[in-house]
């Protein structure tokens, strides 16, 4: 695989940052976009745009077809059984809120329990907190150990007859831990508990097969998948989508509207109220094509190689402590440097064109658990190389120099 050639497809890398070449290590936050995606959006607006699914004119027909093509591509990309199982949202956060609102409305009563983990992003905690406030639900946290792992036992011991949902991340956006999803889902199935997966850090890096994985819900954010901002995907098993009430109300999601009664269509229409991010959804088709042209397994392999190189390099650097040490790790390395706050690290690295993220990464529970208020995080995409890691490491040495460590 020629990473240079792949990287050349991303216009952002032709720009300099502070006179230096950009070393982008913030893909877990949001990935950069290939030219094909950017061009597709621009072309769509120039030549094919109109609103979808509403008008009769030919532009509307084209736009609708393009829009629905993306749904089909996604269905195949994640091997869902039905295209109706793919719901467009504005991001993963909205996908989780949709399930919390609709599943919560119908199935959660006072004292019912929802199991999440200490690794979760706030997006997979706060929506359940709303249910705690609104419905009296109880949130239980499966413990993460010092390696950043959540064992199947730590989930098992929380399950009771009141457990109504297990909601876990696929990959931690801090420690990079890949959770044992199959085991969790198998366990949940024996107890007939539905499982929601926050796939933000899984979908861009790991081959997905919804029929094999057999989870009930899986959410993604397209902007982390070489796609546009403003688009998310909620995969949900059809049986749930048939059963759940609509989320937001408005145009496009109705069947028949009378003064005293309104009826709703089936999924996905039922859950897609109002005009969606039409051009971005059309553009996202190119992101999937981009990923599939390289091959998601090749992406996993390449990122694994660079992650391992990064771990090896940073572990040799005495000033650096790596947060978590999971056996199965995605393309994420979070770290601290003795005596230097992560924000100062980020500012100094930025001076060398190295873009990382510093802070709690929307995971305050995890940071508290790990006993650090903040961490610095390097996260990878297909465009990263060993050279990027070398520059990162040198820049870390510069932090130490400035702080006289």
């Amino acid at each position: 695989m020629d990473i240079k050639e792949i990287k050349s497809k991303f216009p952002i890398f032709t720009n300099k940052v502070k006179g230096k070449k950009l070393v982008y290590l913030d893909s877990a936050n949001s990935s950069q976009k290939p030219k094909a995606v950017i061009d597709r959006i621009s072309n769509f607006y120039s030549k094919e745009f109109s609103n979808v699914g509403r008008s009769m004119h030919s532009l509307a027909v084209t736009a609708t077809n393009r829009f629905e093509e993306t749904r089909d591509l996604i269905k195949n990309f994640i091997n869902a059984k039905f295209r109706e199982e793919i719901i467009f949202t504005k991001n993963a956060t909205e996908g989780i809120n949709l399930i919390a609102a609709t599943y919560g409305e119908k199935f959660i009563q006072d004292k019912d329990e929802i199991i999440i983990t200490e690794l979760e992003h706030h997006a997979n905690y706060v929506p359940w907190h709303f249910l705690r406030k609104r419905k009296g639900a109880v949130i239980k946290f499966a413990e993460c150990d010092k390696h950043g792992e959540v064992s199947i036992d730590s989930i098992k011991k929380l399950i009771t007859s009141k457990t109504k949902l297990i909601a876990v991340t696929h990959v931690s956006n801090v420690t990079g831990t890949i959770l044992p999803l199959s085991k969790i889902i198998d366990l949940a199935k024996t107890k007939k508990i539905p499982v929601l997966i926050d796939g933000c850090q899984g979908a861009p890096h790991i081959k997905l097969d919804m029929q094999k994985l057999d989870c009930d819900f899986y959410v993604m954010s397209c902007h982390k998948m070489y796609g546009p901002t403003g688009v998310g995907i909620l995969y949900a098993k059809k049986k749930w989508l048939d059963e759940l009430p609509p989320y937001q109300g408005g145009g496009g999601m109705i069947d028949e509207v009378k003064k005293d009664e309104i009826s709703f269509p089936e999924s996905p229409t039922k859950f897609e109220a109002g005009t969606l991010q039409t051009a971005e959804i059309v553009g996202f088709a190119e992101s999937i094509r981009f990923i599939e042209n390289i091959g998601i397994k090749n992406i996993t392999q390449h990122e694994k190689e660079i992650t391992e190189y990064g771990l090896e390099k940073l572990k040799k650097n005495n000033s650096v402590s790596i947060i978590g040490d999971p056996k199965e790790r995605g393309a994420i390395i979070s770290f601290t440097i003795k005596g230097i706050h992560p924000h100062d690290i980020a500012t100094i690295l930025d001076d060398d064109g190295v873009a990382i993220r510093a802070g709690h990464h929307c995971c305050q529970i995890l940071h508290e658990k790990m006993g650090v208020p903040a961490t610095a995080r390097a996260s990878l995409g297909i465009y990263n190389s060993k050279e990027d890691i070398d520059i990162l490491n040198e820049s870390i040495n510069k932090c130490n120099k400035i702080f006289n460590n």
Partner: protein
Amino acid sequence: MDLKELYQEIILDHGKNPRNKKKCDGFNKDAKGNNPLCGDKVHVFLKLNDEKQVEDISFEGEGCAISIASASIMTEIIKGKDFNVAKKILENFINMLKEGSKPSINSLSDNENTTIMSLSGVKQFPMRVKCATLAWHTFLHAAEDNKKVVNTEK
């Protein structure tokens, strides 16, 4: 944008060995401040006497070198000042970071001036201005009995 201007010796020193980082004895006012985006926290303790003079001031908290140094420098400079003078210094300081204006504070000694000016480089790093101003806003809340937690995102 020069890193050396941001991380001057004075700042590194205050960041590593912050002054007045404790709960001061006999404080009669306090306030908290948060930077929710990055998790920085500060708690300012203030002893304001009947003449409205800052008899003692201290802080506790966690954050980056800039936020800790700024809090430390603030306590050093404001301690012993009249509240009205302290408020003027604060306004000047914030203007310096936001608009780049030179602080014109007659009441500061040369030494104090050098110390406060060491933070002027922060202006060139817009993402870091909040780090440098957090403790100062929190001081004001404490002095004015504003019970609201200072939040840099509001």
